[in-house]
């Protein structure tokens, strides 16, 4: 059964996978180079990463049909690390990221991702898009109109070329045309060659040359943690999208482990950390890819092209890459969230906007996500902590009945006792908790306090309608506060 499944994963769709893999490889090259430039490293670092990650993930990943490589989200996290400490520390951080992700997989933490609300995820992709966009702006400083014209032409080709044919990725077509214009027109514009060198050789295994000390770990650990969380967040989101597009299921914990293994290999072969890519995975599935073979072909074909065409790659104008990145930003951004912002619940909109704002201020996607999750938790607590108390006087029995409705826990009980009249003329009070639930000792404490205050006025309290869980909690810890008081 297992061998059969393996055969199906690899050889179930050979023609579609090979063709889609080639298309993805062509579309990956400009992105891998541009993301390297965002991270502040040589283009080879992103290209080696894309090769290693795509190939390794094709073997050990949990979601066939998904494409992983060097990504913008990861590149944005590592900018400061590269600027302050250099490439070797990035490689070490990449390996550590892989180790953390494997641990995430082993401890089945993929499930934890459900605590990231969707408004935070929307904020995450929007912030990512804005940051990819703004990362291109420095390339325009001191440039002439030629740069703007070339970027405009790049975008025009990217969006209009698919009307003619979809066989060749339009981003690649744009790169070829714009490079040809720049080379044959002798335009003096910045090129990829100015940003770093392209080595026309396969990656080799090397151990990052860093001092193996506590200080080193303290430098790379925060980055590795951010990278592993961001990587898994985007990878699992992408896996869900591919699940939906192909109408199939996938193993999320296996995918977490796979991402980890891929990053470890990438780090040892001179590549930066990466993760799954939404855009490329959509291209892959649309082009007919659905098996493991397509990611494998994408990685191998990408490396082949670099080895053969490295000389061409250095001549690509930065304008063409900036144009491609603008397209990536536009398609990453979730436009429907802006269009429907006024229709969303206020709190969801606030969480989304806060996530984006914090990312843009701190330049750190993981801090934005954390802030978004915390803010939604606070909103949730605030929403659920509304407790309604209605009262009714039973004249015959000389008894007042309070009906409590809502969740009683630490955040909701502070105002709770104020809703009762302790200086009452009745002799008996009934607190009906049929529509309430006691969650913690603060809730039990609040009831004890109410009981005590009534007792001070000579009023007897009776509880009704406690559900089983609440009753157990109350019996376990209730009565402690007033027992010790007298």
């Amino acid at each position, binding site marked *: 059964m297992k061998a059969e499944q393996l055969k199906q994963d690899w050889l179930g769709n050979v023609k579609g996978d090979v063709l889609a893999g080639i298309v993805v490889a062509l579309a990956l090259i400009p992105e891998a180079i541009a993301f390297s430039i965002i991270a502040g490293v040589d283009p080879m670092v992103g290209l080696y990463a894309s090769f290693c990650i795509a190939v390794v993930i094709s073997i050990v990943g949990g979601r066939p049909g998904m494409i992983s490589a060097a990504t913008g989200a990861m590149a944005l996290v590592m900018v400061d690390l590269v600027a302050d400490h250099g490439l070797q520390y990035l490689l070490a951080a990449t390996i550590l990221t892989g180790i953390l992700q494997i641990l995430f997989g082993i401890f089945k933490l993929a499930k934890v991702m459900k605590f990231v609300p*969707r408004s935070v995820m929307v904020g995450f992709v929007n912030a990512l898009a804005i940051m990819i966009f703004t990362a291109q702006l420095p390339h325009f400083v001191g440039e002439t109109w030629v740069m703007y014209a070339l970027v405009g032409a790049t975008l025009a080709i990217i969006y209009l070329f698919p009307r003619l044919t979809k066989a060749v990725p339009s981003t690649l077509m744009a790169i070829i045309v714009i490079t040809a214009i720049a080379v044959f027109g002798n335009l003096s514009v910045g090129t990829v060659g100015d940003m770093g060198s392209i080595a026309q050789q396969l990656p080799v295994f090397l151990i990052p040359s860093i001092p193996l000390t506590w200080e080193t770990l303290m430098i790379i650990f925060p980055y590795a943690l951010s990278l592993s969380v961001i990587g898994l967040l985007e990878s699992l989101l992408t896996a869900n999208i591919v699940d939906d*597009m192909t109408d199939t299921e996938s193993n999320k914990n296996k995918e977490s482990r796979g991402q980890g293994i891929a990053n470890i290999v990438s780090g040892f072969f001179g590549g930066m950390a990466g993760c799954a890519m939404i855009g490329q995975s959509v291209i892959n*599935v*649309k082009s007919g890819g659905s098996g493991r073979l397509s990611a494998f072909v994408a990685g191998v074909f990408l490396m082949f092209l670099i080895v053969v065409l490295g000389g061409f790659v250095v001549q690509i104008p930065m304008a063409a890459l900036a144009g491609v990145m603008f397209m990536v930003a536009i398609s990453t951004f979730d436009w429907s*969230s802006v269009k429907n912002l006024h229709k969303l619940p206020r709190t969801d909109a606030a969480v989304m906007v806060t996530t984006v704002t914090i990312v843009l201020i701190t330049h750190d996607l993981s801090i934005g996500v954390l802030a978004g999750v915390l803010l939604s938790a606070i909103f949730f607590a605030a929403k659920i902590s509304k407790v309604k108390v209605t009262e009714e006087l039973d004249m015959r029995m000389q008894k007042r009945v309070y009906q409590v409705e809502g969740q009683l826990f630490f955040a909701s009980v502070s105002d709770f006792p104020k809703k009762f009249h302790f200086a009452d003329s009745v002799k008996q009070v009934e607190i009906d908790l049929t529509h309430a639930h006691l969650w913690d000792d603060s809730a039990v404490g609040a009831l004890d306090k109410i009981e005590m205050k009534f007792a001070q006025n000579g009023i007897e309290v009776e509880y009704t309608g406690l559900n089983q869980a609440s009753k157990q909690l109350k019996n376990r810890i209730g009565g402690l506060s007033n027992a010790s008081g007298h």
Partner: protein
Amino acid sequence: MFKRILLAVDGSEHSIRSVKYAIELAEKFGGTVDAVYVVDGDTAKKDVLHATDKFEVEKKRKEKIKPVRDELLASGVVFGTHILHGDPGPKIVEFANEREFDCVVIGSRGLNNLQTLILGSVSHKVAKRAACPVLIVK
């Protein structure tokens, strides 16, 4: 003549208008209607991003084609609904040709020239490649 009618919908106003035509055709010829809604890559991305899990995604899509369902139910015509994944144009054509439908009814989105240039027209693609007659509802 038109026994098996394929009705392609996208949940928009335009597509809901085409439902009436499909029903009329089915009533006239004593045929059945199969409504299809195709989820493309970008829609899949948007839907998954905005939902907590796949059950919610499914629920939202069913809600999206609910007006179509309601109208078909009210008409009393024998019908089925399908949610497919892929590129809408080719997917509808593939579905229509494979299952040998007698007619495809599809709404035109009413795009202007520029939008058609960039987005492409699904109804034109279907009209060109489907093996059966295609009714484009404007």
